[in-house]
């Protein structure tokens, strides 16, 4: 039976053996960030900050989407997903290993894209400021967990893309709403209101992580005894 440590080891190796899983979304995000930066043109001050904020939210959201789309690509070959369902000692361990590496992937992509934004716009990207960094970490943690759970539910469905989209976007909307408000308040320097949105984002993130940890196991563990 496969333990948590073995899951971690396999995912760590897969991280390096499947470079396209991270390179493709990273390149996409960097190119997107760079192209949008060229369109800033002569924008200055408040307008420039506003557009940069939009680019940033867009890049983070899209890189999360791309990482989640590829999250189970290694398991889709040779029906490894089915094998892991029946041979895993702890399904929670499998989820945690998967979640940790999806989180690491998204974070790497966000930092690379933000470096590109900073380089071309001659501005310090907001991700390097602690409140914004905290909000980004919370968003990646929460949506990573939720996305993995929903991807696993939709994995064996013939309509997986539709099932995922139908479930993911409505459930993810509170976190996205909180995150976009945090970026706006940060730009407007309205720090007093920032904490309430950060609290909302933290609460929703905890909820997503708890749902991911508990439901992933329940939904993917084969039934032991049953009758119908």
């Amino acid at each position, binding site marked *: *039976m*496969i*333990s948590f440590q*073995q899951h971690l*080891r*396999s995912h760590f*190796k*897969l991280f390096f*053996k*499947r470079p396209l899983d991270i390179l493709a979304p990273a390149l996409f995000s960097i190119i997107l960030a760079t192209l949008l930066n060229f369109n800033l043109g002569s924008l200055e001050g408040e307008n420039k900050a506003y557009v940069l904020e939009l680019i940033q939210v867009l890049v983070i959201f899209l890189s999360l989407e791309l990482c989640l789309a590829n999250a189970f690509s*290694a*398991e889709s*070959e*040779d*029906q*490894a997903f*089915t*094998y*892991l*369902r*029946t*041979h895993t000692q702890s399904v929670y361990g499998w989820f945690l290993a998967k979640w940790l590496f999806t989180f690491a992937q998204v974070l790497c992509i966000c930092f690379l894209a933000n470096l590109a934004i900073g380089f071309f716009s001659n501005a310090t990207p907001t991700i390097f400021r602690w409140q914004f960094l905290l909000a980004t970490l919370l968003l990646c943690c929460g949506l990573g967990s939720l996305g993995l759970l929903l991807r696993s539910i939709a994995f064996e469905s013939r309509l997986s893309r539709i099932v995922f989209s139908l479930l993911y976007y409505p459930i993810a909307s509170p976190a996205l709403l909180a995150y976009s408000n945090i970026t706006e308040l940060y730009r407007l320097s309205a720090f007093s209101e920032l904490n309430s949105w950060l609290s909302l984002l933290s609460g929703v993130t905890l909820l997503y992580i708890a749902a991911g940890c508990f439901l992933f196991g329940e939904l993917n*563990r*084969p*039934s*032991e*005894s*049953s*009758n*119908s």
Partner: protein
Amino acid sequence: MLEVKNLTFSFFDSPLWRPISFQCKPGELIHLRGPNGAGKSTCLKVLSGLLPGFHGQVEWKSGLKKAYLQSETNGLFLDLDYINNLSSDCSSSDLSDWLGPRHMVWKNFPVRNFSTGMRRRLGLLRTLSSDASCVLLDEPLMGLDQSGIQTLVKKIKSGIENGQSFLVVSHQTQWLDGLATSSVDLERP
């Protein structure tokens, strides 16, 4: 260990096979037989707990570990090498038996480059060396050569001696002579 009563599975309200009932005790090998399309693989999938929505009763001993190997796939991470596809409880003698004495030659090869037979050997090695009390094998001979079949028979024999039980689907029956304690026939309704 396993008790099955009146088990059947329906596709679009049409049952695939007549209800079957059997028991599997420790150290037994049960051969599931039937013509193509009779539902043998579906039956194994139901027994492994992967396919809900069946009719009848499937009762496994509480907390029992089971391992399941599908017919055409081995559940391997194709980008990893064979060592990273195996769990740590594989002995070096198991490795030599299944992959040959010079298995270290393939140490850094992704499993994707392995032939069908070698992938099957790896899949069987991984499944049979797990600590499962019951092993479900769907067409285990697929892609195996004669020496692979001999290794499989040897490993199943030693598993049976250690109290492991097996549920096997196979169209080839000769290799199961002397191994199978009973057989269950799946008949079309």
